[in-house]
């Protein structure tokens, strides 16, 4: 198991290096510069500023400087927010995005699991149909439409929850709910499909024939097997949701990191582009790693084949 873990870790490092390198070169292909007030800057001052930030150096030199900083854990200072460390900006915004997203994932997974289970156990009934309907809505209604509708009706019209801003726990409910719907939809569909398959399997008949109580059959034997695909998808889904959604954060004026993903590219904020990409990659790679370990716990067969490699 240790050898397996170490091997996976070294893969992670190589993956991150490749991502950082590709991002660095791709972003320098973007037209334009990260300078502000650009339309008014006289040419010679523009040159001076480019020189100061080392943007006039040959690209390989810039790459080495960038990598040198990265190895020491230095993501550099943002171009759009003078002198502010990119790491500081991510550190300030991430807890907000993570809280909203985490809450959405927990809520979405629990509801999704229940809906999926009910649908599978009550196949063909109105409950199954209702669960399918919720899933279709969840997949097809974009979160920003739901977010804007919630903000208008629940926030402005009925005044039940705060319409925007990050001030109390109540501020997190609508944005989390808007993000959770897609989680509900995906998880419930996966669970239902897998459960239906597992419930028809031969060993289910054996378990029932042994006279095991229905609860044990469903939860110990069926659900455990049905969870594996859901967990696979849950990892990346969680990362996507906790790193923030630009639109949801804008609609509810939340100080998360969602906006950096888009605005850094529009503004050619090089350090922020690389910083946010690397941060996101580390999360994704770590989650994939954790999911791999989780497999082993849920399904010992995976652990064994992993160890043999």
């Amino acid at each position, binding site marked *: 198991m240790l050898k397996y873990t170490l091997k996976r870790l070294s893969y992670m490092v190589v993956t991150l290096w490749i991502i950082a390198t590709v991002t660095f070169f791709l972003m320098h292909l973007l037209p334009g510069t990260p300078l502000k*007030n650009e339309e008014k800057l006289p040419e010679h001052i523009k040159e001076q500023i480019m020189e100061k930030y080392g943007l006039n150096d040959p690209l390989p030199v810039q790459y080495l400087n960038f990598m040198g900083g990265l190895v020491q854990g230095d993501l550099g*200072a943002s171009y759009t*927010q003078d002198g502010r460390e990119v790491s500081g900006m991510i550190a300030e915004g991430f807890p907000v995005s993570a809280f909203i997203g985490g809450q959405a994932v927990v809520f979405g997974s629990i509801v999704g699991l229940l809906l999926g289970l009910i649908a599978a156990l009550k196949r063909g009934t109105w409950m199954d149909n209702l669960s399918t309907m919720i899933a279709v809505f969840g997949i097809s209604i974009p979160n920003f439409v739901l977010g804007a509708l919630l903000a208008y009706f629940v926030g402005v019209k009925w005044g039940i929850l705060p319409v925007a801003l*990050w001030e109390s726990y109540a501020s997190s409910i609508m944005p989390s709910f808007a993000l959770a719907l897609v989680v509900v939809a995906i998880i419930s569909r996966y669970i239902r499909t897998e459960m239906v398959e597992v419930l028809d399997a031969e060993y289910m008949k054996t378990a029932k024939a042994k006279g095991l109580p229905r609860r044990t059959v469903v939860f110990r034997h069926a659900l455990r097997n049905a969870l594996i695909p859901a967990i696979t998808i849950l990892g990346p889904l969680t990362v996507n949701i906790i790193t923030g959604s630009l639109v949801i954060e804008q609609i*509810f004026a939340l100080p998360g990191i969602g906006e950096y993903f888009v605005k850094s590219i529009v503004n050619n904020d090089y350090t922020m582009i690389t910083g946010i990409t690397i941060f996101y990659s580390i999360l994704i790679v770590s989650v994939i790693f954790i999911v791999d370990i989780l497999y082993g716990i849920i399904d010992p067969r995976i652990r064994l084949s992993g160890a043999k490699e």
Partner: protein
Amino acid sequence: MFTRKFCIGLALSIVLTGCSFSSNGKADIKGFAENQTLRLTEQKNIATLDSVKASDSTSMNVLNNVQEGLMRMGKDKKLVNGIAEDVETNKDKTNYTFKLRKDAKWSDGTPITAHDFAYAWKRAINPKEPTDYGYIFAPIVNAENYSNGKVSVDKVGIMAPNDHTLQVKLVKPQNNFLSLTTLPAFLPQKKDLVEKAKTKYGTVEGLQNMVYSGPFKVDSWANNKVVLSKNEEYWDRPAVKLEKVELYIGMDIPTGINLYNTDRIDATALDQAYVEVYKQTPDFISVELASSNYILLRINHKEGEAFFKNTNIRKAINLAIDRDVLANKIMKDGSKPAGGFVPPSLNGVGNESFRKHGEVVKYDVSKAKEYWKKGLEELKLSSAPEEIQMISYNSTAKRDMAVAIKEQLRRNLGLNVLLDAPPWSVHLQNLREGNYQMGMLGWGADYNDPISFLEIFQSDAGMNWAGFSNAEYDKLLEQAKSESNQAKQYELLKQAEQILVGTEGKGQSAIIPLIYASNAYIQKPHVKELYRHAYGPEYSLKWAYLVNE
């Protein structure tokens, strides 16, 4: 020696607010609200609170209210005294001597001195630390040479002979130099604090070590919310009535409107999607900006043919555009149809609008068709070229404006314009490199001076991306720049503008003016005396207060 005395800021501010008040500043105001907390929004984040580096709107707006320079912008474009209580100029307006008030203090209680100004100004043009707004010091003797590393810092025409006197020497007479001193780049800074904080100066991390010279100070800045409170050390504190200001930054317009409708904020910006809804309400405010939108035509560039090199073609385009539609049917925010380049919010003589003499070009389809025909004949073309492209903005309203222009040119001249709306940085790059035929662009003034508009089309100006070159135009502007008599200067500039955008006489139609821009807001009627400005920082909160409805 010509001396001009400015009335003391405090006295003027009483006139401006239109009500008298006793020492606590609120006794005589009818319905003065108990809770003086104003809540506003800003669409963008703060880039920096280092006044020397600030170049974005939100940073400049906050700085304008927490710091104070020599002069401050008051109501209706009137300058009021800030830290300077008196200013003397010589007859040809090349030497300015500012007398600083002795009771001016930083928020930590230490005095604000002329050295704080000299330090900050010289820091803004330091060749080792180039800044976005350093070029604005160019009128000062040797400022440009120092920022290019040609002379040493002691040659720059900024001197502080004692704690309360600041002397500034200008290269040329400058009628509007005082307007410049209201800008954030001209704010004072405390040397020891800046040097101690190093790169953290003006950032969130360096906030505890900031001091303030203005009506407010920054209490906190985190999670897209900035809280300001009244600065009790401010020299004119009786005039400041707000106790607290909450500023929600990075706010989208629809979200701002939701918050406004649930009474969580007191004012917010509108865009074209909402203007119509609020235009008839008492909450609607339109603020005229010192900003014009126009089409840049590629006149002279080394490579490729230049369709727009032909003057008659340019005149035809200029006459074929109905600006009324653009301003009143599309922008709808109070923007005005532009028949000139210099917007009406800039002054010509004294406090009179530059546009007092009216517009230069008017919509005239039949004349446009004549010029178009003549132009095509001169170019030996039987019909309009098919591949004329216009780079337009990628924001909704201005893109709609581009579509309307395309339709007008098709209908009036039979010219089919292809539209392209790339991201802003690409838009700029294409125009700068001459990689365009028609390009939409805007120009805004930072201070009250029409020269700052017209000079960008002088032959050797860095911003002259059209490649326009006209000897008479250059000469008129050079004359205007060294003219210390405002009335004569105004005449010269009027003639120059006629050449730049005119279709008659010497008119070259080098650029095609579209609209004079405005911003639209909604603001609760209980907010009083919040002054919004046409140029420089967008608003001043010094005199603002809230009343009970």
